[in-house]
């Protein structure tokens, strides 16, 4: 079946360093991927997305890389700040209904802990 998994459950970094969070996906037909940030007591917050026709997309302090050959996603956070501490999820859009779906398949998540 479809699944999205993460390599590292916990990542601890120093404030100011760059963070890299990795994610593997299993459905080679997936064409849309999203990263979410979830802080304690809150719902997931959209960070950045990428379509399968792209290899890289940049936002404010964040970059997502997509390697379709090995079915791998990564989220890079530049100059990590204490406010970046949260659980990060990658998610894959379900392939049903030609894309007209809100079904996202989430991984387990990576806890990012930023040390001051």
């Amino acid at each position: 079946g479809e699944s999205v998994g993460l390599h590292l459950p916990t990542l601890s970094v120093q404030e100011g360093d760059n963070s890299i969070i990795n994610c593997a996906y299993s459905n080679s037909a997936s064409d849309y991927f999203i990263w979410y940030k979830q802080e304690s007591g809150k719902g997931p917050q959209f960070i950045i997305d990428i379509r399968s026709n792209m290899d890289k997309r940049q936002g404010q302090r964040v970059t997502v890389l997509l390697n379709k050959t090995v079915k791998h996603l990564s989220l890079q956070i530049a100059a990590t700040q204490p406010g970046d501490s949260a659980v990060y999820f990658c998610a894959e859009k379900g392939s049903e209904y030609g894309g007209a779906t809100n079904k996202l398949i989430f991984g387990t998540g990576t806890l990012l802990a930023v040390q001051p």
Partner: protein
Amino acid sequence: DAGVTQSPTHLIKTRGQQVTLRCSPKSGHDTVSWYQQALGQGPQFIFQYYEEEERQRGNFPDRFSGHQFPNYSSELNVNALLLGDSALYLCASSFLTGVGKLFFGSGTQLSVL
């Protein structure tokens, strides 16, 4: 501009009871999805509502049902509660065409004793 709002924030029920959770989508959004998030896990898709109809369903039993109202708000109902139904229930809204850019509420924490 209010985001996605959910009520109640916390709920405690006992096995066998029934529960109703409520969601108001972000202003202008017409599609509502519900997700279940167990502790330490990623959210899992329950179902999606658009134009007051269930459009897609995840791998959840019929004990889980929902409704969407003309104002786009939605309810999630769970019957015959099991201990394993304890989880954070998240509502997400979007435009049907805005696939993936889901805006989530803060969720309802359901505890089944």
